[in-house]
């Protein structure tokens, strides 16, 4: 049983931020939860799915974020508290529905949890979800520590219900994936009945129809809800001040930056000189509260990630209040004290404060810093990201790369989001030449494939994972087939949403709650759409390469090549070796072979190591997963595979 449903009020647990949010939702009696996997948000729906049966919650991994929000909204409309969770760019996908949902309003409490990734630690963007709250005019909350993540999540449902409006609870990687102590509250005993009331007066928020029209009426209602939120936020306990009555400098912050700011003040010993206003309610800002603290001092620093959201909004209020509170000097993103790009940390805040107040600070004695820097420069080879040992993507891109080289017409690959995004790097033989959002490789390929009339004659491939296929790849494929575009879509089917931890998707026979469900066959779908479809095992290098060469020769229509091989980290495969790999040191001639060390220099599986002293390749038995692929890349046949099915203890 998960500790997240221990009915143990007052007990203290160590929870990851995402788990704290889940516990808060459980204490609020959440009944419907949906999301699409994406780091750093995935543990929210995952944790809920593990307790769904026991807590009587409907949990699903939806096909994409927009559908997840729609599924959750249905719960709210039917009187059930609901939650949807996603990574930052998921909000972009869901935003069309979000705009309209904000117009129609909600019924039972509904919370959207976007988890932003400042510094793009696990993303190819550091997009901001906070601006969506302002854009679609809904309340925004940002927890500043782990306890607050739980308490605020619970309160967010109550607030949503009071306003009849969806509430955004925004987390960041260093909150979602960090852990801290959390004291549990009570789990409710709930007995709910779902019903969608829609036969009342059309404009009745609880019994009418759910829509954003008539726009003038609903938009006015929406503004009133926002005004009410503003009033509530004036006295909200999640907005706190710590510091002297008349600080030399007032720091205004939110989210994980609260912890950085607090630590920076502590490191510099400035508790008596610097005040810290930590805001939990960051849209709409409560003006009276801001006025009180802005009046304390003339120098204000705003510490936040990533864009100057808080900074801009505070400045607007300060400008309006200037006749009463006087003119302020602001420090933050716009004057360059705090960087506009990347995530923050305590040191960045220390430096910003030290610079502003003219304090000298050194994190390390010069002598030590120089010595450590010198040693590190000489002796720490960098760790380039790479595919895991035994990863099917390495084999797939090996064949794609070789096929394109052999073809010789400057062919290229359009990619999107998944582990295979790494193929922009040498580990995927630098095959990907475009990478943007989910499903976009196939959409872009669809466009390239229509440029023949302008003399475009390069072969085009797109790659797309199995989960991504359902997310947005499928609509791009429909577009391509319908418009008679010409390219080859390669579906890298590794049987799960591998990058984020094997969440199920519509191609699998199991759902988030572990129930058996109908699966949708990618191959059949592609055929039904009218594409020519081939299926290969990427571990069969020669056959895969040959097929790609044939498909890119085809000058008509859209081809789909499904490369099917389970992820090396999947529970079915992990720890099980299909082959025992060895090197025949008599045959491996290393640099003298003429192969140019193709195995260790180009193929670069972490299980293969170039032994400089013996001048042969060797297998790292701890790392090798026994997939057997490298045996087929050695032209001399020095890499041997022998069949075993060995389970590691």
């Amino acid at each position, binding site marked *: 049983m998960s500790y997240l449903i221990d009915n143990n009020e007052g007990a203290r647990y160590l929870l990851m931020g995402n788990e704290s949010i889940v516990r808060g939702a459980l204490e609020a009696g959440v009944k419907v939860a949906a999301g699409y996997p994406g780091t750093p948000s995935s543990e929210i729906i995952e944790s809920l799915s593990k307790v769904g049966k026991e807590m009587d919650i409907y949990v699903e991994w939806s096909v994409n974020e927009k559908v997840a929000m729609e599924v959750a909204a249905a719960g709210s409309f039917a009187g059930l508290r609901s939650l949807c969770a996603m990574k930052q760019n998921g909000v972009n996908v869901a935003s069309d529905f979000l705009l309209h949902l904000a117009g129609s309003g909600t019924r039972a409490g509904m919370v959207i949890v976007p988890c932003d990734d400042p510094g793009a630690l696990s993303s190819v963007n550091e997009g901001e979800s906070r601006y969506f709250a302002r854009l679609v005019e809904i309340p925004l909350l940002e927890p500043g520590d782990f306890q607050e993540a739980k308490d605020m999540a619970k309160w967010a449902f109550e607030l949503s219900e009071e306003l009849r409006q969806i509430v955004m609870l925004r987390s960041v990687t260093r909150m979602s994936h960090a852990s801290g102590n959390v004291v549990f509250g009570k789990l409710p005993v709930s007995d709910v009945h779902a019903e969608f009331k829609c036969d009342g007066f059309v404009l009745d928020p609880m019994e009418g129809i759910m829509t954003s029209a008539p726009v003038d009426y609903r938009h006015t209602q929406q503004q009133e809800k926002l005004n009410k939120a503003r009033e509530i936020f004036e006295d909200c306990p999640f907005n706190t001040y710590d510091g002297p009555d008349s600080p030399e400098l007032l720091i205004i912050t939110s989210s994980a930056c609260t912890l950085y700011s607090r630590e920076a003040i502590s490191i510099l010993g400035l508790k008596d000189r610097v005040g810290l206003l930590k805001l939990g309610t960051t849209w709409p800002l409560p003006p009276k509260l801001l006025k009180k603290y802005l009046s304390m001092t003339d120098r204000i620093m705003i510490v936040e990630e990533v864009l100057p959201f808080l900074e801009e909004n505070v400045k607007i209020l300060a400008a309006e209040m200037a006749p009463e509170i006087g003119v302020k000097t602001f420090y933050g993103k716009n004057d360059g004290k705090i960087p506009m790009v990347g995530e923050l940390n305590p040191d960045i805040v220390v430096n910003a404060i030290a610079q502003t107040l003219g304090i000298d600070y050194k994190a390390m004695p010069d002598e030590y810093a120089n010595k450590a820097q010198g*040693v590190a420069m*000489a*002796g720490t080879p960098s760790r380039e990201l*790479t595919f895991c040992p035994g990863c099917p993507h390495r084999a797939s891109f090996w064949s794609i790369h070789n096929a394109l080289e052999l073809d010789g017409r400057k062919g290229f690959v359009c990619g999107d989001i998944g582990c295979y995004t790494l193929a922009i790097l040498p580990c995927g033989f630098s095959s990907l030449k475009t990478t943007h959002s989910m499903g976009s490789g196939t959409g872009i390929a669809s466009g390239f494939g229509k440029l023949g009339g302008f003399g475009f004659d390069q072969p085009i491939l797109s790659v797309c994972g199995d989960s991504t296929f359902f997310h947005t790849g499928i609509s791009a494929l429909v577009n391509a087939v319908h418009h008679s575009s010409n390219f080859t879509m390669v579906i890298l089917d590794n049987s799960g949403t591998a990058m984020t931890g094997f969440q199920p998707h519509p191609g699998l026979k199991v759902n988030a709650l572990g129930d058996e469900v109908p699966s949708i066959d990618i191959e059949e779908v592609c055929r039904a759409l009218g594409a020519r479809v081939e299926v290969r095992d990427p571990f069969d290098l020669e056959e895969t390469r040959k097929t790609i060469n044939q498909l890119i020769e085809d000058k008509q229509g859209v081809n789909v090549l499904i490369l099917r091989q389970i992820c090396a980290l999947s529970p079915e495969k992990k720890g099980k070796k299909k082959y025992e790999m060895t090197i025949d040191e008599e045959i491996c001639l290393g640099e003298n072979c003429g192969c140019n060390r193709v195995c260790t220099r180009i193929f*670069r599986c972490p299980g*293969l190591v*170039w032994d400089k002293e013996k001048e042969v390749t060797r297998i790292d038995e701890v790392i090798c997963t026994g997939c057997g692929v490298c045996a087929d890349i050695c032209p001399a046949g020095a890499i041997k595979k022998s069949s075993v099915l060995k389970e590691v203890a």
Partner: protein
Amino acid sequence: MGNIQLSKDPYNIIITGVGGQGNVMASRVLANMLVKKGYCVTIGESFGASQRGGSVMSHLRVSRSSIWSPQIPRGRADVVIALEPVEAIRVLKDYGNPEVKILSNTRAISPVGVIAGELDYPSMEEIKKSVKELASDVWFIDATDEGLRLGNPILGNIIMLGALSGVGVLPMDREGFKGVISRSIPEDKIDINLKAYDMGEQMVRV
């Protein structure tokens, strides 16, 4: 071992390694052991893309009274547990100081650049010399090799935790370890993990 008082508050621990070494598991087990002793623990973790061959780091802040930043400030590590030896040096560059203590595994995991023959991986002697220059107390432990002898190299992380207990800077004990893993790993794996923990503890005492 269970009654040791922290020499500083917050006491800052970094567990570093390479994706797949059980870094996150080790940090959560250690943190839970300390929470059970009544401490406030904050963990900052980097995982996600870094799981794919990159360096992985967990920052643990242990305090009697409060939550701290999930990122340790520069130069402020008190003890570093390196599941991979070169990662110890990488961490010291940013978080080291003359008083820091280091426990390092000796099993190298070659970055792809080294496998490819483009970069050099320093010899164990060079690593030992560098680490000793940058730290006050240093222990090198053949944790992965011992783990292999126990049947699974992944046990290296538990051997390192046992070793951390053995050096006596944190209030850790075997009972606490057992209590924590009993809730997080399958029953049939508990004995082997306890064995690994004991082994680690012994290795630094010799």
